[in-house]
């Protein structure tokens, strides 16, 4: 019991923002905050059904649970740190329990969503500077606002002709052929198989309490749609940003779907530099049927191998 308490405190410590670096919160306050969090975790621990016996997974799940239940500020969770810890753990593990991994990732997604909702609310608040300077001429700004180095870009502000212009290309379309239909069928069949696979996966392992939440969106829908967007981008590595269509929620959707697709073996995901580098995704096998079949076979095997958890 003591040991698990220790583990838990450590994990929370890792997951929490490094508050002392970010704001002026004194070290003591921070410790007492974490202490109280640990206590809450201990309380919750008794009443909650947590599938994993692994202290790490258990602690992460509990901490996330607290956020999801709105007893933590979502921004107190450092998801980057979480991904690092979790990836490190998964790399070391001989076998990954997909049930628990899925649950944890799903919870991380919820937190990310809560964070982005807050960020969105914050960003949507009109900046005070906007009100102050509304209708003012830009020339007079540098009196009030710290100007940034304009460099030669200043020329752009006054230029009549922009160095960039839309290129005119041919817009031609052609009748569809039988080969197109077959290609489409091939893709459609694979995609719907993935959906079926996913539906089964989600059905089997969904957390009962998620149903009560506002997340009625179907994760399968999201994953399928993100997979399609990826296909449309063609061959090779694609910055994840290119998969976003609109809105902030969409980013969360794309990100989580990418995690699932990666887990299913359909795509690779990597980041240029941690933590703020560009994230890239690449479909492992957009055109190569053999490999895609292998990949889906692998995902099926993984699902089947998952030990049965209540």
């Amino acid at each position, binding site marked *: 019991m003591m040991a698990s308490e220790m583990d838990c405190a450590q994990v929370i410590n890792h997951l929490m923002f490094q508050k002392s670096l970010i704001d002026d919160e004194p070290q003591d306050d921070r410790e007492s905050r974490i202490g109280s969090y640990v206590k809450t975790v201990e309380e919750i621990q008794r009443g909650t059904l947590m599938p994993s016996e692994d202290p790490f997974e258990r602690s992460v799940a509990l901490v996330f649970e607290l956020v999801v239940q709105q007893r933590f500020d979502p921004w107190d969770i450092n998801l980057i740190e979480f991904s690092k810890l979790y990836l490190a753990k998964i790399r070391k593990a001989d076998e990954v329990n997909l049930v628990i991994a899925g649950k944890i990732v799903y919870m991380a997604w919820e937190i990310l969503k809560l964070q982005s909702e807050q960020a969105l609310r914050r960003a949507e608040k009109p900046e005070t500077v906007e009100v102050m300077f509304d209708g003012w001429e830009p020339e007079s700004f540098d009196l009030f606002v710290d100007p940034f180095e304009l460099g030669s870009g200043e020329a752009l502000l006054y230029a009549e002709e922009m160095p960039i212009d839309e290129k005119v290309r*041919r*817009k031609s379309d052609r009748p569809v052929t039988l080969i197109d239909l*077959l290609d489409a*069928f091939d893709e*459609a*069949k694979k995609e719907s198989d993935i*959906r*079926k696979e996913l539906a089964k996966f989600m059905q089997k392992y969904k957390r009962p309490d998620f149903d009560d939440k506002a997340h009625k969106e179907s994760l399968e829908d999201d994953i399928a749609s993100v997979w399609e967007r990826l296909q449309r981008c063609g061959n090779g590595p694609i910055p994840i940003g290119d998969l976003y269509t609109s809105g902030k929620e969409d980013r969360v959707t794309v990100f989580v779907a990418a995690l699932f697709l990666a887990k299913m073996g359909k795509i690779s995901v990597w980041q240029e530099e941690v933590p703020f580098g560009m994230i890239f995704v690449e479909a492992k096998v957009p055109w190569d049927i053999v490999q895609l079949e292998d990949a889906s076979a692998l995902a099926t095997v993984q699902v089947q191998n998952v030990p049965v958890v209540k």
Partner: protein
Amino acid sequence: MKSERIIEAELFSAAKPVTVTELSQISGLDARTVRSALDKLAEEYNGSDRAIEVSKMGPRYAMQVKKDYKDYAWRLSEMEIPKDVLKTASLIAYYQPVLQSKLFDLIGNKVYEHVKSLEDLGLVRTKPRKNSYELTTTKKFIETFGIDARSRTEVKAWLEGELTKKSSPKKS
């Protein structure tokens, strides 16, 4: 700026065959100049070994890929029916007669929009059934894709055949 170059830009960017009047309206060149520019271009393109030609179809002109190069050209151009709509069409053909609600499970809520546009194109027929719609392919579907089948059962069988043909060498 040479008039034939202006007409060249217009022909290139036009997605469909255009008339001299249209070319003249956009370029601001008179019809006679447009015609002589078209002649020059046709000579320049069609006489050379280029893969592109300027061709005349009745009163309309178009820039297009020469016949010999057609095989290389079509794959990269955009399809008349968007790919994802085509995917839905193929699933309907494969599972037909299939309930729209069943298809929803396979492809999600874009099914409504796709079925609508396939119905508009005359490729798919809908019939109310069990609080949903039963979807089948039409004769036009068979004609559009030149499938060797005379009924929807045959379309289905044909697709099934194609599927096994594709997957069999890879399995095991």
